């Protein structure tokens, strides 16, 4: 199933196309902006890997972490400092950036800097948030809530479309399987593709064990490579992973972020799998097992 193509970035930074038969796009970076120096260093290191592998990419990091389990957890550097850092990254690295926002009133300010506006999974059906994001005119990275069925994401898509914005990427980040546990249902990809928009797999949040450690989320990052190969084989258009140089010391999502030393290995396999998937689609056409057969 061939999706439409959305455009991210352009102008001062690289223009990235996501969808259709375009190359697999990587969205990645540290979960939170921890400091200017750390953000710049991570961007440079990830950029070097993506350049080496010739993988188009978008830098991801957030200024506000509003869904932390504990009130004492690191909440982020804040919007002013965070957007300054992201602006500097865009300027110096020429890479587009994606960042989420959790308050409809912050949509415009965020969109003035970032190329790609992310809707957090927990907020994926909030009309004020979706409408505010859509009205900025920027492409929207919409994560499927862990509690949402893939077919009901169409309602969220239509809330954005109602603003005239039809630049949407839909991402699966796991589905609640009882309490403190997620499972990956890969039927979500073809079902969300029925909207016509490209789809993405968030590998690092998919291995999260939500708030499994009292007031902190756990995670099983050892499963990331397996889940990535399978998701790319399903025909996703983009891959999302949070990457850190020292996950154990990360200020958020320490149990799920991928150590950067594994990034080249995983991205290499993902790229090869995606290219094989495109070749197979070219040779064999769309998946065509029908309900009546």
């Amino acid at each position, binding site marked *: 199933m061939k999706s439409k193509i959305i455009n991210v970035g352009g102008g001062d930074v690289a223009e990235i196309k996501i969808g259709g038969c375009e190359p697999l796009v990587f969205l990645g970076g540290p979960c939170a902006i921890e400091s200017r120096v750390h953000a710049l260093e991570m961007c440079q290191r990830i950029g070097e890997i993506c350049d080496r592998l010739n993988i188009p990419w978008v830098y991801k990091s957030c200024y506000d972490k509003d869904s932390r389990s504990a009130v004492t957890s690191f909440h982020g550097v804040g919007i002013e400092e965070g957007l300054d850092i992201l602006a500097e990254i865009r300027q110096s690295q020429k890479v587009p950036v994606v960042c989420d926002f959790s308050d409809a009133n912050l949509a415009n300010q965020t969109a003035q800097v970032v190329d790609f506006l992310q809707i957090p999974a927990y907020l994926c059906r909030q009309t004020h948030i979706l409408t505010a994001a859509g009205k900025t005119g920027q492409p929207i990275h919409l994560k499927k809530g862990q509690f949402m*069925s893939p*077919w*009901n994401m*169409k*309602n969220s898509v*239509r809330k954005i479309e109602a603003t005239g914005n039809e630049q949407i990427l839909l991402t699966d980040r796991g589905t609640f399987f009882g309490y403190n546990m997620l499972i990956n249902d890969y039927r979500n990809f073809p*079902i969300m593709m029925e909207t016509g928009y490209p789809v993405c797999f968030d590998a690092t949040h998919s291995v999260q064990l939500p708030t499994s450690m009292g007031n902190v989320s756990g995670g099983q990052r050892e499963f990331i490579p397996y889940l990535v190969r399978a998701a790319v084989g399903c025909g996703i258009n983009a891959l999302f992973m949070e990457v850190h140089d020292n996950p154990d010391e990360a200020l958020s999502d320490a149990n799920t972020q991928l150590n950067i030393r594994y990034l080249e290995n995983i991205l290499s396999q993902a790229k090869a799998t995606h290219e094989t998937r495109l070749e197979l689609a070219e040779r064999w056409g769309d998946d065509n097992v029908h*309900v*009546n057969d």
Partner: protein
Amino acid sequence: MRHGLNWRSGGEMTMSTLTTNRTIRDILLSPTDIPVMSARTLVKEALELMSAKRLGLACVIDDDGKLIGLFTDGDLRRLLLKSQKPISALFADDIITHARTEFTSVDRNMDIEEALKLLQDREIFDLPVLDENGRLEGVIHLHPALKELLEK
């Protein structure tokens, strides 16, 4: 001419007697009286509209008012037997996904007799009525048509 459809009350009356010089515009249900919807109407919304309008026929039109699909009670029955999706997923589908896009239609100048024969031959209850550009003008439905005929 007899079509096998007779009405007896104080004397035999054939279809020809009932329909003399009348066209289907006399029995046309207008678009405001029938379930008319866009392609992206959810199945659940379509069923609600069909129930509200008390007609087992959903008419799917495009932005220009052209009829692009039909979905009937029978289609729903067959869909329920065929689909293995959860009902919540089926409800969230766009109606056009399940609508038939090839259908018989008539124009408003057709004789009632001819139209009723068409309904009878095809064993269907409804026929969409389109203008020369394919836009939906209404529907003829067997029961209101009979009611109209019998009351006059």
